């Protein structure tokens, strides 16, 4: 089968850094981009090997210089169109950018139609832009399980910016803020009244709030209510920017770019900024731990006595209780 089912890690490293070129390719950058796209596929298909691959790449030992921007928001709010415009602005400054666009997988078939690219056609032939569509593959946090690893891999190629566009989200899918340095939340003028904005969840998490499509309806009420509901209690904390924008007319775009820059400066210079990055790291480690031990626990569950499983199914034993027992068993086995 032509689909790559194995990977030579040391060769992959050389291909990603450009030390070696893919067979038959003379353009170094093109070869690296091809290697990146192959590497992302490999980690998507074999998530358990991500750890091996990522820890074997020497280039990953130097600090990441790419700036990661998350774009999240309601389905149809204009995330892809806005991303397209942000990419255009980034390119005007001669900076390079990778876009990881996540779309949902079908809960029925597991398949997906990945269509975010359609809004970014103007950049297809630009060698400074890499666009990769990712299926969420059943993950519910708004991004795919492999998105974090894909960010790391894109970082090896030294993209100045990495934009992660999430699936269209509702109220609680906030995983993006664990991955991105700056998260933009894209809303619409009629996204809901103040009660919606008072609710907890992703509405509390973004760094920049964008009321898009303001050419279609007045964003004034939404802007006011967002200001009221997102202003931090702590005067030292980042005050989220609230911007009226329109992907159709370009209104507000410069404000968006400016906010991305100011948030970057805030995070790098303000003591609170370090705190935020530390919290993000802790969450990432927790999530990674889950991935690392999952296969071992799956094995433990499959070894569990049939009657224990039946008790959980029947409801006579809480799943939490069995989980506790399995966890103790696991810890004993590694001692």
């Amino acid at each position, binding site marked *: 089968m032509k689909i790559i089912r194995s990977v030579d890690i040391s060769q992959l490293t050389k291909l990603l850094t450009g030390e070696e070129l893919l067979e038959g390719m003379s353009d170094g950058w093109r070869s690296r981009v091809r290697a990146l*796209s*192959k590497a992302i596929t490999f980690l998507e298909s074999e998530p358990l090997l991500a750890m091996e691959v990522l820890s074997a790449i020497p280039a990953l030992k130097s600090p990441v210089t790419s700036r990661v921007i998350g774009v999240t928001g309601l389905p149809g709010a204009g995330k892809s169109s806005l991303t397209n415009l942000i990419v255009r602005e980034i390119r005007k400054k001669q900076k390079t950018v990778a876009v990881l666009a996540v779309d949902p997988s079908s809960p029925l078939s597991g*398949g997906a139609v990945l269509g975010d690219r359609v809004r970014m056609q103007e950049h297809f032939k630009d060698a400074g832009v890499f666009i990769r569509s990712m299926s969420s593959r059943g993950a519910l946090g708004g991004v795919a399980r492999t998105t974090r690893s894909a960010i790391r891999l894109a970082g090896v190629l030294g993209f100045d910016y990495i934009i992660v566009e999430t699936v269209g989200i509702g109220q609680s899918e906030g995983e993006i803020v664990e991955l991105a340095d700056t998260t933009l939340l894209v809303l619409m003028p009629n996204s809901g009244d103040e009660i919606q904005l008072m609710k907890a969840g992703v509405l509390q998490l973004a760094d920049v709030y964008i009321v898009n499509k303001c050419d279609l309806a007045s964003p004034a009420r939404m802007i006011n209510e967002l200001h009221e509901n997102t202003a931090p209690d702590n005067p030292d904390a980042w005050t989220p920017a609230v911007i009226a924008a329109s992907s159709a007319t370009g209104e507000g775009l410069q404000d968006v770019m400016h906010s991305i820059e100011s948030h970057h400066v805030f995070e790098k210079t303000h003591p609170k900024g370090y705190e935020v990055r530390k919290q993000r790291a802790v969450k990432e480690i927790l999530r990674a731990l889950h991935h690392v031990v999952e296969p071992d626990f799956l094995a433990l569950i499959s070894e569990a006595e049939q009657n224990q499983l039946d008790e959980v199914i029947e409801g006579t034993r809480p799943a939490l209780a069995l989980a506790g027992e399995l966890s103790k068993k696991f810890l004993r086995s590694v001692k």
Partner: protein
Amino acid sequence: MNRYLTPSSPEGSSGGSPNSPGSVEIAGIKFAKTPRVLIAKPGLDGHDRGAKYIAKALRDSGMEVIYTGIRQSPDEIAITAVQEDVDIVGLSLLSGAHLELFPRVLAALKKQGGASIPVIGGGIIPEDDVPELLKAGVGAIFTPGTRIEDVISEIKRLLEK
């Protein structure tokens, strides 16, 4: 360090299930991983009902389908195919320019480092033109009325070639 990691190697399986985690079954056919398919519309015709139909049908069969939108140049299609690392490219064309555009997509793929990606085509394509397209390197041609099961088994055949 020069190691190969495969799902069947001890490092790869690391206590997981005996089946390789990436493998999927689609319409009764087993694939080594979830196939990624690019559905693209080269040239100038803007009728994309057929392209959208096939995209949805393949999605419902469990594949990941990337759709480019209409009016794409061969270079744009090839660059997209490479960046998305698709396993196969499906071209939909109703304008009659298939003899011109399909070979140009194949050439562009070669230039972009995607020479190994098979290309299939569909749309309004006269029977008489099919042998020439196959000879030029197109993997398969589907005309209106093709059953989706046949497309899937053809994709499987091309991926195993």
